């Protein structure tokens, strides 16, 4: 099993996401992460899916996706030369005594603190999947009240060449 990142261009109308996710569940494929948003192409959305699959299975997934009328293209993103990002928003309890230790630990990351009150704060972080995982590990020592992650969105940089 390998982690794959795929990028779909789909028609932007109702039901399309159901068609895509329904295909995954129906055929027993797994979705690890999913994000959807509009694109610069009018009437088109991009769906970014992270999935775990064997080498033969990933080809099946792509071909099955390509059969959907609303799916215009499916691309497997290369491991390198892909800009992959995820947004994390984390609400946690931090006592005044640990506040400085936390910001010290976070200093290597480009973390924003968009909201803070006595004893609790909200962190905002955008990074690649590995950075997100590392940041979440750091949170192990704190009481996390709420955690949001957007799922990965990604773009291949190969076309820049």
């Amino acid at each position, binding site marked *: 099993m390998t982690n794959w990142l795929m990028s779909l261009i789909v028609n932007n109308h109702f*039901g399309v996401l*159901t*068609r895509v996710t*329904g295909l995954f569940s*129906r055929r027993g494929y797994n979705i690890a992460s999913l994000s959807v948003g509009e694109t610069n192409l009018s009437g088109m959305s991009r769906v970014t899916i992270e999935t775990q699959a064997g080498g*033969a299975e990933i*080809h*099946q997934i792509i*071909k*099955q996706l*390509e*059969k*959907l*009328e*609303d799916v215009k293209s499916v691309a497997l993103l290369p491991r390198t030369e892909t800009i992959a990002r995820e947004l994390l928003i984390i609400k946690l309890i931090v006592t005044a005594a640990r506040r400085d230790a936390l910001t010290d630990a976070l200093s290597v990351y480009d973390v924003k603190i968009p909201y803070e009150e006595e004893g609790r704060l909200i962190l905002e972080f955008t990074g690649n999947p590995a950075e997100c995982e590392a940041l979440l590990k750091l949170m192990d020592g704190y009481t996390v009240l709420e955690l949001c992650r957007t799922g990965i969105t990604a773009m291949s940089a190969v076309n820049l060449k």
Partner: protein
Amino acid sequence: MRLTGAQILIRTLIEQGVDTVFGYPGGTVINIFDALGESEIKLIMPSHEQGGAHAADGYARVSGKPGVVIATSGPGATNLVTGIANAYMDSVPLVAITGNVVRRLMGRDSFQEVDICGVTMPVTKHNFLVQNISELAATVKEAFTIAVSGRPGPVLVDIPKDITAELFDYVPAGRYKVRETPMSAQSKLYLAADMISKSKRPLIYGGGGIVSGNACEQLTAFAERGNIPVAASLMGLTALPSAHPLMLGMIGMHGTPVSNFAGKNCDLLISVAARFSDRVAGDRKRFAPNARLIHIDIDPAEFDKNVVCDLHIRGGASEALDELTKLIPENKDTGWINEIELFRRENPMPEAVGGEKVNPRELLRLLRALTDDDAILVTDVGQHQMWAAQYFPFTQPRTFITSGGLGAMGFGMGAAIGAKAANPDKQVILLTGDGSFHMNLTELATSVTSNLPITVIILNNGVLGMVRQWQHLFFGSRYVSTTTGRKTDFVKLAEAFGAAGFAANTAQEAAEALKIALSSNRTSVIDCSADPDEMVFPMIPSGKSGDDIIYGAEVD
């Protein structure tokens, strides 16, 4: 010209070449039926929407044109689902049109409201909810385009009732055009031709796409030039006449011994428009274990889905076979064919052994003798279906109509009516079992009322024979729920529906009844008393390979 949505729909159907639809009225399609009533389209009303969907499916399989079925919202729409799923599994072009509640009531669990697009998503190629009358004509045309293009299949169009009443400027959408499937590069065909010319023991595994893709002549030319025997899937049985010397019959679970022998011993398997279903390749790892594999299919998602092949060629069967026939040398080597012939002579199919009742194998031979060459044989699902596949000598494409992938008992009555509607001049015979027939026998009313006479032959063994056979072989003969004990009098039943009823206790009696039925031009039901202990052999148990064939079993 200002027309209602219903009128625009009907005009668009006519533009798509539709001359027959199967439809059941209801609240949300009342405008559509009003418009249908004033059109030249022939409207056939089934007893139940499922029968209508199967009829549209049967119509499509026989005619090669997309079948159309119309149903109302809610239960009308959900009753179509088995029929749509059946068409999906067997790649049959079908356009299902459903009414839905008016737009302002949608999403409120209104009376007879069902999200039929949600329900049918997994069993359609695509479906549409028409949300604006301006999209209606283009959507209907697109539905036909999708249904017939590439690998055919069903498409559903859901239309809210208020759109069918709304007025809009009618602009003809024009006839759909089949979207062409690009063929694989020529280099792949050269590779395939090279593999074929080097093979000493090639085998064609032919599927339903040869029949639906009108590629039977191309298959014959290819097989004859390469001197390559053909084993067919259930769906591919009419691709080559049963009597053709290269035709080995059905391969797989209930396939002929010679087909499975060839599958096991070939050094090259050329799959043409077939999909290696579990009923063919029970053990995916041991199917054609000594062969390199070439897979030709219009749908690339079939490649390596079930069985991993060495070479994939994307394309329609007819174009691909045409090209390959040009590229392969004429093969005069008869070693492999002789070996197959020897095996076939020494390992024939089980013979009909008299018995007290109507012997199914004998019945199928009689049926061939008594029917026209172009007669259409429709089946339901179960033992009778397998016996038909094994013993009926097929002569022409599109004359065997059966539920392959879905295995839907109850398919036969509707499908036979659809087949007759597509071909009123041909004999249409439904071979069914008492179990399958019980599921949709109310369609007898449709056959009688719509003047679409068919001949129904019931192999009545009083049991659900195929499940019972599994219970006998694999469940210690514990016959749970398969001995039905029903007291149905099929002769009286037929008469009650306005059809003719016959009872037959021997094959000869069945033959006599069949002669009368076929010459009467009336819907007829022939109740053939059959032995419940008769089993379908040979059999490769589920998940097993050609090494594990069972040729027979003792009955306690």
